[in-house]
C-alpha cells in the first residue's frame, strides 16, 4: 500500500511534442508531477495546448523527447497497441460534450470501455456484474432507473455528461481525465455535476485530472496548475507571419 502510494499517477519531465501536418504545432512541457489520489485542475484558455497535453498523457500520441511515466509505466516503452490497451485499462475520459455513441443505448455506452479493458471488466463483474455495476453508477450519478435502455441521443446534455461519467468510472480505472466537462452545462447543473463526479472519485480513490478555463472551479480541487506555467507552445505559421 505504501509502495503503491509512492508511485505517482503522472510523472512528466522535459517532454517535447510536434504535430505534423497543416497546422504544425509544437508543445514542450517542463515538468508535471501528479501524485495518486490528487484532484488536479489544469487551468488554461482554449488553444493553450491542453488537448495535446491530454493526448500525450493518455498515450494517444507519443512525445518525441523527454520522459513520461503513468502509474510507473513509461509510455514510450509501449507500442501503439500497448498504449491503447494501457489507456483502456487505466484511464476514464470525459469530454466537453458529445461523449456518447449516439445510436447506442445508455447501458451499451457505459459498458463499451470494458470491451477493450479485461482488468476493468473483471473488477466491474466482481462489483456485482458488469451491467449491475453500470446501473449502480448511473443511479449514483442521479439518473433515473429506466434510463439504461434509452438511446443516447434522447438524453439532455446534462444527462449525457453523467452517462459519460459512469462510462469513465466503470471498472474503477486509476485516472479520470475530464476535458472541460462542465462547460456545456449551466451554472446550477455544473455544481450538481461536479458534486456527483467528485463524490464518485472519492469513492473509487481515483486520481482526477481536469482541464478547464473556469477559475471558479478551483475550490473543489486539491491542486491547481496554470497551463501557461508548465507549457510552452509555438505554431509554425503564427511564427512565420
Amino acid at each position: 500500500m505504501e509502495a503503491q502510494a509512492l508511485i505517482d499517477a503522472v510523472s512528466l519531465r522535459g517532454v517535447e511534442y510536434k504535430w505534423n501536418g497543416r497546422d504544425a504545432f509544437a508543445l514542450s512541457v517542463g515538468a508535471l508531477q501528479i501524485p495518486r489520489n490528487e484532484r488536479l485542475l489544469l487551468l488554461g484558455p482554449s488553444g493553450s495546448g491542453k488537448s495535446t497535453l491530454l493526448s500525450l498523457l493518455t498515450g494517444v500520441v507519443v512525445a518525441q523527447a523527454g520522459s513520461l511515466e503513468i502509474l510507473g509505466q513509461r509510455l514510450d516503452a509501449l507500442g501503439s497497441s500497448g498504449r491503447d490497451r494501457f489507456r483502456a485499462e487505466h484511464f476514464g475520459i470525459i469530454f466537453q460534450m458529445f461523449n456518447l455513441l449516439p445510436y447506442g443505448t445508455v447501458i451499451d455506452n457505459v459498458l463499451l470501455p470494458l470491451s477493450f479493458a479485461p482488468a476493468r471488466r473483471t473488477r466491474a463483474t466482481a462489483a456485482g456484474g458488469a451491467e449491475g455495476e453500470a446501473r449502480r453508477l448511473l443511479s449514483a450519478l442521479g439518473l433515473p432507473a429506466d434510463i439504461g435502455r434509452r438511446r443516447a441521443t434522447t438524453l439532455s446534455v446534462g444527462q449525457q455528461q453523467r452517462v459519460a461519467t459512469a462510462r469513465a468510472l466503470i471498472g474503477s480505472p486509476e485516472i479520470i481525465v475530464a476535458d472541460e466537462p462542465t462547460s456545456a452545462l449551466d451554472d446550477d447543473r455544473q455544481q450538481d455535476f461536479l458534486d456527483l463526479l467528485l463524490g464518485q472519485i472519492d469513492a473509487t480513490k481515483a486520481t482526477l485530472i481536469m482541464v478547464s478555463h473556469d477559475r471558479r472551479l478551483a475550490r473543489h480541487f486539491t491542486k491547481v496548475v496554470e497551463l501557461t506555467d508548465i507549457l510552452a507552445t509555438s505554431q509554425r505559421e503564427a511564427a512565420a507571419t
Partner: protein
Amino acid sequence: MIVARLALQSLLNRWITVLLTVLAISVSVMLLLGVEKVRSGARDSFAGTVSGADLVIGARSGAMQLLLYSVFRIGNATNNVTWRSYQDIVSRAEVAWAIPLSLGDSHRGFRVIGTTPDYFEHLQYRGGQTLKFAAGTPFDDLFDVVVGSDVASRLGYSIGDTITVAHGAGSVGPGHDDLPFRVSGILARTGTPVDKSLHVSLKAIEAIHVDWRSGSRIPGQVTPADRLRQMSLPPKAITAAIVGLKSRLQVMGFQRAVNEYRAEPLSAVLPGVALQEMWGLVATAETALLGVSAMVVVTSMLGLSAMILSTLNERRREIAILRSLGARPGTVGSLLVGEATLLTVAGIAIGTAALYAVLVVARPLIDRQFGIDIGIQPPSSTDARLLLAILIGGITAGFLPAYRAYRMSLADGMMVRT
C-alpha cells in the same frame, strides 16, 4: 460484442443510404449472375438439342448454317438434297440409322417437319434421351400429325383435333386448308426445338403439294384426300438428314465421302464441331456482356466505398470516442471493413435470391420467346467463384475508408476539434 452491436446500430441509423447501397450491390449481383446463368443455360440448351447424332447432312453450305436450320430450326436451307442421293448415302454399310427432315411448311408460326417414324425412335437430346409420347402414337395415316409439347400446350391441341398446314414459314399466307391433319400424338417436353415442331410423314409433305407448282396453287386443281392416300408419292427431295453411324471411328471417313459426293454438292458436319464454331462466334458477345456486368459490379463497389467514406466525417466523433476508450486504429478500421463486408454479403444474398425469383417467373417466358430453357439449379462453381469475387471486391472496397479512418484517428488523436 457491444462494439459490433453499436456498429450495427450506427448502420441501422443510416438505413436509407445503407439500403440503397445494398440494393445497388444486389442489382449488380443479379445482373452478373443472370448473364452467367443465361450464358450457361443457352449453351446447355443448345448442346442438349443434338445428342447421339454423328453427322448432319444437307446441301453444300456452312457447318453452322446447316446445323442451325436442321437441328435448331433457325433460318432456312438454300438448297435441298435429292431423295435419290439421300437413299444412296444412307444405304452405306456404316449407317446405323438416319432421319430425313423436310422443312418448309408451317402451322401458326410453328414449323412443320416431314420425316419418317425413325425420328421418334432415333432422335436423341440431352445426354441420349429419346423422344417420348405424352399421348397418342406416331403418324400412321397420311394425314396424321405428331405435335411437340409447346405446340400442344400453346394451341391447346389434344389427340384427334384437326389442323391445317400453311405453305411457307409465316403464320399467315396461302394454306393447305383443304387437307386437314389429325393430331395422332403429342410428344413429351424436351426443352429443345422439337417442342415447337409439328411432324408429319414425308409422303404427307408431297401430298399437300400435289396441287401446287413453284410455290403457288394450280388453279382449279383439287385432289381429294382419299385419292392422295392411294397415290404412291415418293419424296423428291429432303432438306437435311441426321445420321448415326455404327462406329464413331467411321465418322471422318463417312464425312469425307459425303463431302466428296459426286452426284450433287453436299455437306456433312459433326454437330459438336459446328457447335464449337458457333460458341467461337458468340464468345465475343458473351465476354462483352460479362464485362459490362463486371463493370456494374465495380460501380456498385465504388458506391459502397463512397457511401462509407461520406459517413466518415460525421463519424469522426464516434471514432475519437472509440479511440479514447482504448480501441486501436486497427479496430476502428476493421469496423469499417466489417461494415463493407456485411453490406456486400447482404447484397449478394438479396441479389441471388432475387435472381432466382426472377428466373422462376421468367423461365417460361424465355423458353417461349427464345427456346432457351434456363435450368433452375443451385449456383454452379462458376457462380460461386463470381460471388466470391464480388465478396472480395466488397471487402476491398471497405479498405479505402478504413485506411482513411485509420489516418484520421491517428491525426485527430482522441480530441476532435469540431
